[in-house]
């Protein structure tokens, strides 16, 4: 088995045990986003586009600095801008980096029926495997943060990968590295929680934000992306960050009491395939295919 498989903790639509469950000890990785020092420069947006070589996407001017209204299948990292007037009349210009939250209990993964189209690695990263994606879009409804986005021409769903290619090689995600203000931070979940708590208390004690706090919502088991907010009691003001995100009840239902329905479908699939095999025989790979490949 490959290392990659060993590192998998959870897997969508999978019957039986997950290959790597419990076999690897790995640090939980986490992104910390301190919105109180975010300057909305969009370096993270560009770093994401560049590292993942995402193509140009036409945008429109819409009376805001925000690049587009929501993340897109080829735009995974978006700063949301909000002008917010405080009760005393003073203005705040709130900027929040929006991307996949890499939930500990991912709604997308729970909702996904395709075997291993969504995996959660032992380090907490939730990654989509487009090779396995069947384009059903269930993950979209399973996500309380409106993150997975469907590409209608390829019929696949995409989102932030946590730069799993970089992280697996020991590097930080591209957005984290680029962030010029230092509002983004990367490390273990424990360290990020500590850092976030310290910063929140500094904001309360020295900078006049009595409600400063950390956003790490328990409704999804905590997240691999946590925020420091000036006002943790009102996350909605930061471009619609949900106050108590949770996996939608339909998804819970689908994965809980009615899971047997899914299993039935899978069993049906197996029967169908068996019948197919009996009828047409096994597919035989021709010997000369290799020679055509041109590899010695």
């Amino acid at each position: 088995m490959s290392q990659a498989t060993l590192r998998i903790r959870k897997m969508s639509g999978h019957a039986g045990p997950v290959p790597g469950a419990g076999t690897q000890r790995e640090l939980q990785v986490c992104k910390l986003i301190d919105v109180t020092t975010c300057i909305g420069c969009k370096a993270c947006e560009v770093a994401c586009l560049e590292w993942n070589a995402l193509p140009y996407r036409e945008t429109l001017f819409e009376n805001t600095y925000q690049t587009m209204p929501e993340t897109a299948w080829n735009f995974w990292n978006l700063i949301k801008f909000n002008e917010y007037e405080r009760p005393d009349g003073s203005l705040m210009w709130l900027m929040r980096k929006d991307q996949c939250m890499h939930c500990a209990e991912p709604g997308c993964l729970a909702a996904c029926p395709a075997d291993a189209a969504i995996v959660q690695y032992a380090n907490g990263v939730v990654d989509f495997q487009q090779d396995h994606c069947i384009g059903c879009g269930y993950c979209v409804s399973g996500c309380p943060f409106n993150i997975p986005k469907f590409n209608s021409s390829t019929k696949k769903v995409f989102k932030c990968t946590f730069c799993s290619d970089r992280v697996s090689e020991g590097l930080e995600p591209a957005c984290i590295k680029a962030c010029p203000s230092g509002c983004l931070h990367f490390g273990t979940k424990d360290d990020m929680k500590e850092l976030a708590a310290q910063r929140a208390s500094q904001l309360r004690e020295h900078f006049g934000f009595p409600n400063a706090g950390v956003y790490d919502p328990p409704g999804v088991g905590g997240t691999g992306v946590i925020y420091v907010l000036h006002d943790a009691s009102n996350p909605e003001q930061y471009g619609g960050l949900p106050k108590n995100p949770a996996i939608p009840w339909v998804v819970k239902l689908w994965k809980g009491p009615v899971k047997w329905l899914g299993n039935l479908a899978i069993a049906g699939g197996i029967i169908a395939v068996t019948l197919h095999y009996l009828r047409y025989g096994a597919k035989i790979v021709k010997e000369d295919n290799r020679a055509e490949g041109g590899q010695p």
Partner: protein
Amino acid sequence: MHPTRRDFLKVGTIGGLAASVLGFDLAPAYAQLRTLKIARATETRSTCPYCSVSCGVLIYTIGDKAKNVTPQVIHVEGDPDHPINRGTLCPKGASLEQDILNERRLTKPQVRRPGSDHWEDITWDDALNEIAQRVKKTRDATFIEKDAAGHSVNRLESIAWTGGCTDTNEFNYLVVKAMRSLGVVHLENQARV
């Protein structure tokens, strides 16, 4: 456009599970970790050409500098050793790859002739010869040796040089040498504005 339920069944069962039933070991394919695209690329340290912070950047190019390779950029990111930017970049620095490799780059000398409504191609030799002749003609016709009070001034007011913000120190020095030797006084730069 959403896939139909039929698509789902087709892909989900036949494509996925069929193989497993047939005894192929699918496990390695559960998660194909993407490979690091810069793993063996050549890394060159440079300086961002945009603002005056002068962030260190790493430019990744294809090939390992072997003779038979023409390098081309595949990625740019910040230099983590650089004391100021420490690996970070802004949205302009982070998009440098597409500044270096850009289909809008000018790649041949052109000339627009008097009264013309279009560019014509011109060879480098012809362009430089024509420009050199124009410089000399303009200079010889307008060079000022003395001012009204009879002081020696030795200056050329009719030719101007305006330099850009990404000119290196060394290039600026060569400009000062060449232009001041011609007598140029209209010598200006982005530094002024």
